[in-house]
């Protein structure tokens, strides 16, 4: 900008004033958009609660039905081993065909088939077998149902053979046994709601950080208001930065609500690290992700296009950055690609600060990576912004 004869201090004051009016304008516009505000409030309150409370990947209350052809002491004993919270007993069946039928209908997730002469063979020391049919349409649930059931049956078999050899459980002490004991760090109760609610919060932050500034910019193009800004003395930076600033403020407030309104009081999620650090790094993450959204906004013409494009960017980020499944489990090329995803770093930052109590000492590499990514994305977005109108 060429402003001749205006002192530097006055120019800085004008620049600052412009930044403030533009940011204020973005905030007013956002809060007048009722559907977005409702969606925002829902996403950072109720939806965090639901995902923390409702999303379970552990086995919980799997319906199991039994076809018991033996009706003996041993068969009833085995059936009694399938207990809540893992299994819930869904009744006996009159034939093994009915078990098949119920699996097909989806009313039970496992069927235990105990053959006739089960007790007799067990008592006689003959080998015997039970059949377990498991619905693994939902594979993690099905597989863990199968493995739990296998453990229950194995333990039952072990007890049965011990009873046959030594007659008592104490006798087992004489047998060679390896005990595998583990200690769980950072989340000693293995409380899944912590993990689920934090990853949901991360998802919401990513979506809003990308979408809000992008739609705000595209809306200006769509409605033609951008022309009025372009003929004014605003630089591209002063058109784009206020959008990011406004959305960062909103997202930080929303995160505070989710953290102190839902996650801490209801789920007891601990905050072991420094809060100021957490919020500053969230701001950095929002800035970085917004850069990506703004870039998307410069290559699209209307809100539906930018919505679809950001979806295309967000979906792999959310799936592959390590929120849904661990980074290490992915093929190398995905791991390389994901070094470009700011979320990949932000996940470690948030889990680190909240659960492990990490500080900058452990996280500086991630901070640097996010800063570099954000700077270059924002710079690229600005370059595109200038280009698109020429």
């Amino acid at each position: 900008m060429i402003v001749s004869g205006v002192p530097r201090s006055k120019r800085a004051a004008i620049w600052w004033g412009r930044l403030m009016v533009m940011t204020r304008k973005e905030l007013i516009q956002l809060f007048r958009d009722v559907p977005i505000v409702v969606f925002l409030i829902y996403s950072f309150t109720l939806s965090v609660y639901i995902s923390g409370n409702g999303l379970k990947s552990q086995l919980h209350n799997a319906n199991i039905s039994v076809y018991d052809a033996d009706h003996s002491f041993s068969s009833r004993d085995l059936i009694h081993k399938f207990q809540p919270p893992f299994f819930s007993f869904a009744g006996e069946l009159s034939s093994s065909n009915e078990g098949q039928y119920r699996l097909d209908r989806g009313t039970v997730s496992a069927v235990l088939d105990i053959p006739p002469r089960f007790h007799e063979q067990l008592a006689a020391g003959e080998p015997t077998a039970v059949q377990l049919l498991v619905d693994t349409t939902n594979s993690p649930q099905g597989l863990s149902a199968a493995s739990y059931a296998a453990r229950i049956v194995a333990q039952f078999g072990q007890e049965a053979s011990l009873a046959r050899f030594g007659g008592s459980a104490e006798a087992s002490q004489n047998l060679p046994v390896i005990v595998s004991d583990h200690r769980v760090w950072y989340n000693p109760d293995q409380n899944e709601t912590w993990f689920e609610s934090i990853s949901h919060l991360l998802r919401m932050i990513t979506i809003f950080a990308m979408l809000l500034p992008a739609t705000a910019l595209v809306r200006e193009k769509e409605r033609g208001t951008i022309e009025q800004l372009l003929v004014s003395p605003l630089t591209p930076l002063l058109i784009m930065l206020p959008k990011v600033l406004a959305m960062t403020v909103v997202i930080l407030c929303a995160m505070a609500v989710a953290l102190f309104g839902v996650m801490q009081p209801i789920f007891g999620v601990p905050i072991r690290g420094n809060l100021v650090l957490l919020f500053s790094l969230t701001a950095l993450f929002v800035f970085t992700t917004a850069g990506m959204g703004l870039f998307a906004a410069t290559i699209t013409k209307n809100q539906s296009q930018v919505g679809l494009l950001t979806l295309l960017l967000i979906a792999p980020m959310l799936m592959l950055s390590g929120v849904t499944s661990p980074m290490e489990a992915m093929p190398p090329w995905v791991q390389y690609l994901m070094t470009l995803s700011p979320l990949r770093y932000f996940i470690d930052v948030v889990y680190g600060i909240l659960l492990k109590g990490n500080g900058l000492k452990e996280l500086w590499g991630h901070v640097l990576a996010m800063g570099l990514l954000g700077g270059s994305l924002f710079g690229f977005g600005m370059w595109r912004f200038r280009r698109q109108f020429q």
Partner: protein
Amino acid sequence: MELAEPIVRVLGFVKRYKKHVAVQGVDLEIKRGEIYGLIGPDGAGKSSLMKAIAGVLTYDEGAVEVFGTLIDSERAAEQVKQQLGFLPQGLGLNLYPDLSVEENIDFFARLRLVPEPALIERKARFLAMTRLDKFRNRAMKKLSGGMKQKLGLICTLIHEPELAILDEPTTGVDPVSRRDFWTILAELLRERGMTALVSTAYMDEAARFHRLSFLSSGKVVASGTPAEVQALVPGLMVTFEATPQMEAIARLKTQYKQVEALGSLLHVFTEETIHASAMQSITSSLGDIRPVHLRVDEPELEDVFVALLLRQADQPPSAEMPRVTALAANHGLAIEAKGLIRDFGAFRAVDRVSFQVKSGEIFGLLGANGAGKTTVIKMLNGLMPPTGGEGWVAGADMKTAGGAIKERIGYMSQAFSLYLDLTVEENIRLFAGIYGLNRPATTTRLEWILSMAGLKGYESSLTSRLPMGVRQRLALGCALVHQPRVLFLDEPTSGVDPIGRRHFWDILSVLAREEGVAIMVTTHYMSEAEHCDKLALMFAGRIVSEGSPSEMKRQVETEAGRLVELTVDRPAPAINELELAGFAGVALFGTKLHLLSHDPEGDEPRIREICAASQGVVQSIKTRPLSLEDVFVYRVMELEKQERKQTTGVAA
């Protein structure tokens, strides 16, 4: 026309959108074979009424009868739809942008089950008539606005409906394409015996209709033939020059409701019907200011509509222009363009354009759609870098001091470009902040804008709830927040009602005359171009004619002659004959014909003879002052003729 039974009958029509009443009790009857017009500003209820007649919108009260069928249900509407053609509002909105001209026509024909041989025959005829036959394979999105509308018309009429309903087919189309559109429509309707219901926001198009209804805020203000409507407001239009102009306007406004400044001319509508007494009453109300070049004419239809509107409603909040200590009125050059060029790929949109605009001058840039007007403005205000040439705006070089220019200019773009979800005051404060005004300056300017634009009482209303005319004044206010020395207006008044438009121009002339602001404006309303001090006409990227409105009219008068208006009982067949006989500017206006002649008295017998040969009896023949629209159309037609000659010459 006289014998026909009505094919559309509307009684006590009421349409509400939630609480807002869009149309309140409209009656109308359309007879077979006529072009029936609905005229009125945006939001008058034209579209609602047309959609209900087309059977695509339900209504709340009253009755709509089409071809004798009462349209009261979806099923009733389906029955008449085959006999209807409906062209919705918006340039080419019903067409498919990626399909070619021919594919679009084929699609609509097959949708309407037109038999293949009939399709081939009609397509050939319609394409030839609209001169779109050269562009058969061009994608619709690459057509100009006027061409899109012609294609839209073909697609609406391809199944030869008995009734064509056309919603604002000429909005956003330049005068030449508009005139062309009307000629084609009239010809098609006559040839195929169709009836049409057409709406328009251009008051000067009223003369094109056989009968019309003038709507305002959901009510019919006047209806009948153009002559009948004109007779509702007897009066005369007095035109003269008077200096000082501002003082003369102030004096006249105490007595007359319609006072307009057109460049150096003043236009006053008086209800006197005798020429001499009209002149006398004007002279006496001016006091010691002496009017010169006094002339008295019949009023245009637009003046009549404005008078009707003023009679019906109270005056809109009249804006008192608060006087501001004028910026050092510097009478140097405000804009200078020297050989500006802009290429888009191989296409040259602007070709060596040069002009100068002084401070305090209103400069109008005219031209057909795609002539390059908007591109020139965008280059001057820094939205687009030029490919070549030089320019200075507000004392700064376009190439090196873009930032400085941006601080000194105001710009109002074609589309409304303020924030609809902010209130009036928030919008003004936003732009005050953007232009770096401090707190006390913001407060003073806010006050000034509110009173200048008549926005008092609207401060905290959302911009989206404002009527069109008020929005435009707000946009002007925001463009003026930093007291720019140069103001660019790109089609600022499209869709604004005539009173709103006149109000808007009052503000502009005060800005130019008293504050010395240079104003550069583009417009499609030729009645508005009359307000400019200087005009430049663009054609294919070049400026082809320049001068004040009266100079431009004089040039055409010396080149092609004076404007003659004929009232002929069967005018249409005579058009071709008159053109063949060498008359320029032959055009059909409802039941009247316009043409240009060097010697109207001498040519009269010849004209009567030609009309009689094509079974038309000339009822009256008189000369009229040339309008700028006539000038525009004449110039562009001549240039197109030359261009055709050149291309055929090259081909041969």
